[in-house]
């Protein structure tokens, strides 16, 4: 009985901590017009051409990040499981390095190391650095997701079957491995998407017209619009995570089914 009481107590404390700021932000975002509650702040944000441009920029950047990350990680994870299982801890170590090198240190190192090269002297070069950093940040999530996905299928048999039908490595990867890790890839992709869309540090320090720096700048000129943006951003994160959980359940059910 006492145990139950304390559980409820801590649950309520936690829920309050989580929900009050969200409620307050929502409440605040509705007060753009004096004396009434309205969605004016949202309308202002959505009608702002800079919002659309920066959102679209980050969206494209996120897609590029996901595609490149998948193209690097899937063949690597596949090859390591098939031929180099001893290398797995090494790959794991490298994918976890972004936790040791925080984003600000990563972008600092990149900017210093490649200064006075086309990578930092041109718009395109800076974008390459941006996507490259994001791909590095996505590795821990992508590798773990794909590695787990690969373990659920029998890649040795699939590879041999494909080879006996005359398939080359490219065909095996494109037509056998990729389709089979599709759901695992999607969950890695959604978390990458959520991270890239809200990322501020790297984008701002590389002077990129991304969504994060846009949100940051908006705060200096507007009062209510930032909270509308916070709500939009929270909804976006929520959607991405919900998609992952939906996919995860589907994948689990499928793995558990045949056994």
């Amino acid at each position, binding site marked *: 009985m006492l145990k139950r009481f304390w559980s409820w107590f801590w649950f309520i404390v936690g829920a309050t901590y989580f929900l009050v700021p969200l409620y307050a932000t929502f409440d605040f975002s509705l007060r753009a017009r004096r004396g009434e509650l309205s969605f004016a702040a949202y309308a202002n944000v959505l009608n702002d051409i800079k919002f659309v441009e920066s959102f679209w920029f980050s969206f494209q950047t996120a897609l590029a990040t996901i595609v490149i990350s998948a193209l690097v990680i899937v063949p*690597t994870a596949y090859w390591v499981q098939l031929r180099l299982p001893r290398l797995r801890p090494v790959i794991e170590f490298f994918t976890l390095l972004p936790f040791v090198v925080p984003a600000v240190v*990563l972008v*600092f190192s990149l900017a210093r190391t490649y200064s006075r090269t086309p990578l930092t002297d041109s718009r395109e070069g800076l974008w390459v650095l941006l996507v490259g950093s994001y791909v*590095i940040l996505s590795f821990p999530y992508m590798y773990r997701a794909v590695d787990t996905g690969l373990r659920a299928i029998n890649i040795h048999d699939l590879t041999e079957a494909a080879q006996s039908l005359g398939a080359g490595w490219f065909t095996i990867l494109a037509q056998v491995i990729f389709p089979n890790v599709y759901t695992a890839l999607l969950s890695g992709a959604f978390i990458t998407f959520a991270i890239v869309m*809200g990322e501020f540090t790297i984008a701002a320090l590389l002077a990129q017209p991304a969504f994060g720096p846009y949100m940051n700048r908006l*705060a200096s000129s507007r009062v209510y619009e930032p909270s509308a943006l916070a709500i939009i951003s929270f909804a976006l994160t929520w959607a991405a995570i919900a998609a992952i*959980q939906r996919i995860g359940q589907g994948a689990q059910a499928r793995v558990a089914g045949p056994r």
Partner: protein
Amino acid sequence: MAPLTRTETSQPGIERRAFSWTWLGVAPFFLFVAAFLIWPTLSIIGQSFLDQERRLTLRNILELGRPFIVSSYVYSLQLSAVTAIGGGILGGLLAYAITIGGLPRPLRDAVLSFSGVASNFAGVPLAFAFIATLGQLGVVTQWLRAVGISLYPAFSLYSFWGLSIVYIYFQIPLMVLIMAPAFEGMRREWREAAESLGATSWHYWRYVGLPILLPSILGTMVLLFGNAFGAHATAFQLTGGGSQGNVVTILIGAQISSDALANPGLGNALALGMIVIMGVCIGLYTWLQRLSARWLRS
């Protein structure tokens, strides 16, 4: 004798060639990591031991002892410690409540889903949310004013404690996400065994539960520590990014756009200090997780 030597010399040669082709499969990954992570980081670490004429020196490292740099590191370390402990305790209790605390199952799923979102909800939008909550015009600030409590000027969202409250918002969910499986890994038999020997709830937690969970709890708190120490965007949005009296990450970020310290080597040394601290955190976390895995893997 002769055939033996031939096989001895030829066999390893074939193996070595096959070996190198196999390695080619992971080359793209390593090239990518080398170009965008390893080479830049190593070059920064190396350059923090070079002076402006590229001679070997320890001056940059020693210059980390400048008062404003030390105070910046101390500020970051304190902020990380306070939010790791605060977020760790709150998150740990919440994880306990939703797993073995006897709450209805749907609450557990709801809290875990929410934690997945909230742990990724950091940076600029999180700062906005708290400005709307506890800023000068914030909703909660006004509620409190209505009942006669004025937060300002005694409290400020932009102060150490204000920043701590904001950081704890993304620390709690991380703790919940990692600790919930650990609590669920506690075997019911352990508790039953203890109770059959006459242990009370206090005895059980003091002599069985806590000792088993302690490495896991400490490890996760170390991870929270690193999580806060590396954070940049949230603090930047709240404090405006001035280089005085601020977290280390902002100090480092300021070195990119302008060489504010007028010494590139010192900027490199700042980054090196950060990498060392983060490396210690991750190492400690890995070690503690390994300790706890002995008991909690079923």
